[in-house]
């Protein structure tokens, strides 16, 4: 049995733990729950191998997930489940679903505890609820980890209360009753539907009640593959995103933006002419540009293209990739261990800017009136948004209603609410409702980015051990001014040096070295460059991990060891060895590969989970030089074997989906996708410039393995697929071409395979030849 598992078992309390739930006074059954339980995860197990153990690292004992959960403790009891008179159960999840499947997994958790079918549970996304304080942020892969227990407690209490009500009505001992599919049935075969019990089970007063949760051995829903419950709506076109909502009079609105990043308008020469263009209803100068409202988005774009605007310089006027890199290099913190006394591996890596645009561009609807405002949009920090919008409009926070709409992808972009702020400003300026959408060019050029960063690594080795491993990560500032999703920490992050403190905390709580490398340190420094940044399916991990794993291959080479055997030997836990073994076995590590092709490994530890990837890459000329119209080909990842031990898995099908997405992200980060900063602006204006993974890049063979090491609690999943894959792609590439790359993506300095689109007008004209390209 793996050591860590024994450690967890030893720590587990005797008997079943009890939790406190609350009955809420209401006409039908309403229950709530608070978090009272303790952490069950143990620290790292001691390694039995020869390596020099490193001291415990913060993420191994207390990581970002713990920080997020602890920040939520005082208010988690406001999570409520309601039993409706029609027998369904409803729950408004204070989170944002952008495709990661948390609505489905939440339905599963409630269905499990209440003996319902998944489709009998209705889960919606809650509006901004400022009383939740810190409990309404969707980020850091934290949703399932932070909500799993409170939701179960509430559901278990609801179940208990329904059983008690049925027992009264049926005059039967409660222990003879069972709940299944929304019916309470007695041993005599009599049954009562939940709906009939919703009233009788209701409480006249608020009351605290002790509940026991269903033991894991009895789970029938959790851990079974479940399709996303909105899949039918998606494949029939019925699922609605913000731009699809029909809000009365909220007409299409587009902003004409500056050529410079974050440039602002000085004046517009032809406002009157543009106001008379077909379909146009309103044109006004706003803080970020000139806003146009029209009958259709097409006409709003035509009007944006016709505007003649003079602009003030942007925030990085005149800067380019090299000037930013120079600033980063200057800010790199010194390494402590001197080089050259013993054998030393010294490496330095550059990770260029990357776009976290989702396919749905930034979109929001706003209806601002004199004394109130109503906002619709996909927002992961709706309380912060509500506060910021209220401030912008000069309204009290409770006069602003923020509806969270399902998003068309986020990847970190929707931690911010740029479109909602602009929509509110435009609606106020026009005195009319607006449906504001960023053009693709704006979303790519002016939208948030993953910051450029460097990672320096110095490791010292003897002939059979690693003495020290230092990593100095230096990054353009990552914007954490969304705080933990509400006004208080957001304000703290905005205070002088507040954001750096926040960034360092996140870095410290998420980054762990999975190997025993002796004296092991990781330090972050950030340089404020006034870019629009945010996380992108991880904040630091893909870059930090890639640097560490590439150096790990170099260390293995230095010690004359096989990269897999080397990782096995130095791994800090059996969980890490578990995923490593899984990919090595299933991916046939070490099989013979043709010249120009190779295998590579990557390992990562974050969010209470461990991951490993084994990638095979084809770098032969006939593959690299494949010609695809307006596409980037290059080296092809032909096969990925990926293993994750994510702790307790709620929905394996959903977890596999998240890994698949992360794998495709990891491939793009290393091989194809980056932004280029030139003369104060990003060049890439659309998907024919920015090369996210496409069908011709994705691995034809993909095998995802879920490793179960018996954990009692779910970890994080949303971002877990990226880092190990990125690292493995980099290592496979290095082995295939015989040269270690130091910049990512590897094609960043290649000539553009496209003609850059004009900056003025800021949006390219839609073609008219679509009927010549049918198939």
């Amino acid at each position, binding site marked *: 049995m793996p050591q860590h598992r024994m450690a967890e078992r030893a720590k587990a309390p005797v008997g079943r733990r009890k939790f406190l739930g609350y009955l809420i006074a209401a006409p039908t059954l309403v229950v709530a729950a608070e978090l009272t339980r303790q952490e069950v995860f143990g620290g790292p197990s001691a390694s039995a191998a020869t390596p020099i153990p490193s001291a415990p690292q913060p993420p191994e004992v207390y990581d970002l997930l713990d920080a997020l959960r602890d920040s939520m403790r005082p208010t988690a009891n406001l999570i409520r489940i309601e039993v409706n008179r029609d027998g369904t159960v409803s729950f408004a999840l204070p989170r944002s679903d952008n*495709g990661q499947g948390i609505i489905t997994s939440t339905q599963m958790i409630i269905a499990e505890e209440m003996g319902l079918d998944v489709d009998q549970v209705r889960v919606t996304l809650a509006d901004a609820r400022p009383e939740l304080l810190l409990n309404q942020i969707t980020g850091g892969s934290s949703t399932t980890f932070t909500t799993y227990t409170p939701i179960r407690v509430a559901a278990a209490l609801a179940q208990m209360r329904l059983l008690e009500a049925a027992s009264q009505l049926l005059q039967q001992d409660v222990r003879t009753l069972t709940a299944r599919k929304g019916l309470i049935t007695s041993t005599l075969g009599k049954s009562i539907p939940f709906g009939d019990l919703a009233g009788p089970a209701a409480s006249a007063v608020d009351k605290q009640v002790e509940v026991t949760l269903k033991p894991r051995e009895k789970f029938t829903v959790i851990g079974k593959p479940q399709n996303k419950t*909105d899949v039918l709506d*998606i494949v029939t076109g019925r699922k609605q995103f913000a731009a699809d909502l029909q809000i009365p009079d909220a007409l299409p609105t587009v902003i004409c933006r500056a050529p410079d990043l974050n440039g602002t308008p000085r004046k517009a020469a032809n406002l009157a002419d543009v106001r008379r263009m077909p379909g146009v209803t309103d044109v006004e100068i706003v803080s970020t540009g000139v806003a146009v409202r029209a009958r259709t988005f097409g006409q709003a774009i035509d009007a944006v293209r016709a505007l003649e605007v003079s602009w003030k310089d942007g925030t990085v006027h005149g800067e380019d990739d090299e000037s930013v890199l120079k600033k980063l290099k200057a800010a790199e913190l010194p390494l402590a261990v001197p080089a050259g006394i013993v054998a030393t591996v010294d490496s330095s890596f550059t990770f260029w800017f990357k776009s976290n645009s989702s396919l749905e561009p930034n979109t929001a609807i706003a209806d601002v009136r004199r004394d109130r405002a109503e906002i619709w949009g996909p927002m992961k920090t709706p309380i912060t948004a509500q506060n910021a919008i209220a401030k912008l409009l000069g309204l009290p926070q409770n006069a602003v209603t923020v509806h969270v709409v399902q998003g068309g992808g986020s990847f970190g972009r929707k931690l911010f609410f740029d479109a909602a702020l602009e929509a509110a400003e435009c609606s106020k300026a026009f005195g009319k409702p607006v449906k504001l959408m960023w053009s693709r060019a704006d979303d790519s050029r002016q939208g948030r980015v993953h910051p450029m960063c460097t990672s320096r690594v110095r490791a010292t080795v003897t002939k059979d051990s690693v003495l020290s491993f230092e990593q100095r990560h230096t990054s353009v500032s990552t914007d954490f001014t969304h705080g933990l999703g509400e006004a208080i920490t957001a304000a703290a992050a905005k205070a002088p040096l507040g954001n750096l403190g926040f960034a360092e905390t996140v870095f410290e709580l998420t980054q762990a070295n999975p190997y025993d490398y002796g004296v092991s340190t990781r330090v972050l420094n950030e340089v404020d460059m006034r870019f629009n940044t945010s996380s992108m399916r991880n904040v630091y991990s893909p870059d930090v991990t890639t640097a560490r794993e590439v150096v790990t291959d170099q260390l293995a080479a230095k010690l004359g060891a096989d990269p897999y055997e080397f990782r096995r030997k130095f791994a800090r836990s059996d969980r890490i060895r578990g995923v490593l073994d899984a990919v090595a076995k299933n991916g046939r590590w070490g099989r013979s590969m043709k010249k120009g092709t190779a295998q590579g490994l990557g390992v990562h530890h974050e969010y209470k989970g461990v991951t490993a990837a084994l990638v095979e890459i084809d770098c032969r000329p006939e593959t690299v030089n494949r010609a695809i119209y307006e596409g980037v080909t290059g080296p092809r990842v032909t096969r990925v074997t990926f293993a994750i031990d994510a702790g307790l898995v709620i929905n394996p099908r959903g977890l596999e989906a998240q890994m698949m997405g992360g794998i495709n992200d990891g491939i793009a980060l290393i091989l194809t996708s980056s932004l280029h900063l030139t003369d104060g602006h990003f060049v890439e204006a659309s998907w024919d410039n920015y090369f996210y993974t496409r069908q011709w890049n994705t691995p034809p063979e993909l095998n995802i393995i879920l490793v179960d090491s018996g954990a009692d609690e779910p970890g994080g999943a949303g971002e877990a697929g990226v880092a190990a894959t990125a690292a493995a792609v980099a290592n496979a590439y290095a082995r295939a071409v015989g040269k270690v790359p130091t910049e990512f993506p590897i094609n960043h300095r290649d000539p553009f395979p496209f003609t850059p689109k004009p900056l003025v007008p800021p949006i390219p004209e839609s073609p008219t030849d679509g009927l010549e390209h049918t198939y």
Partner: protein
Amino acid sequence: MPTQTFMLNGERVTVEAEDGVRLLWVIRDLLGVTGPKYGCGINVCKACTSHINGKAFNPCSVQVCDIGDDDEVTTIEGLADGEKLHPMQQAWIDRDVPQCGYCQPGQIMAAVAKVRQCRAEGRDVDDDAIEEIRNICRCGTYNRIREAIKAGADKM
């Protein structure tokens, strides 16, 4: 303002719109049919992929005046036969393909057209054929899309 007439999902529609407005906006903003999504507006991302007379096309790049009165435009909303899903939609459900779902209407419409094209040209619906599909999925669902297309093709 000119009047535009065409067939949309089996019904004749008439709408007032300037000739140069791209069909995507006529469908979405004026007719309220929102299955086809905006992702780029320049025929690159393919999120608006729909069918014209049974072939895949991108309405973001066609002026509404270029659509004839009898041209049949089919969006994702018109793919199923009433309540009976198209085999490709069913294959998408069976493999739980979508994540956020924003690109998926376009992906499904592209897949159906690609299978029809392969059949007409006597080609297999293999990896090479699938890699001709340019639709972007930023959630990275490509691998399940590949499986679903092959399964859906078998039932078409």
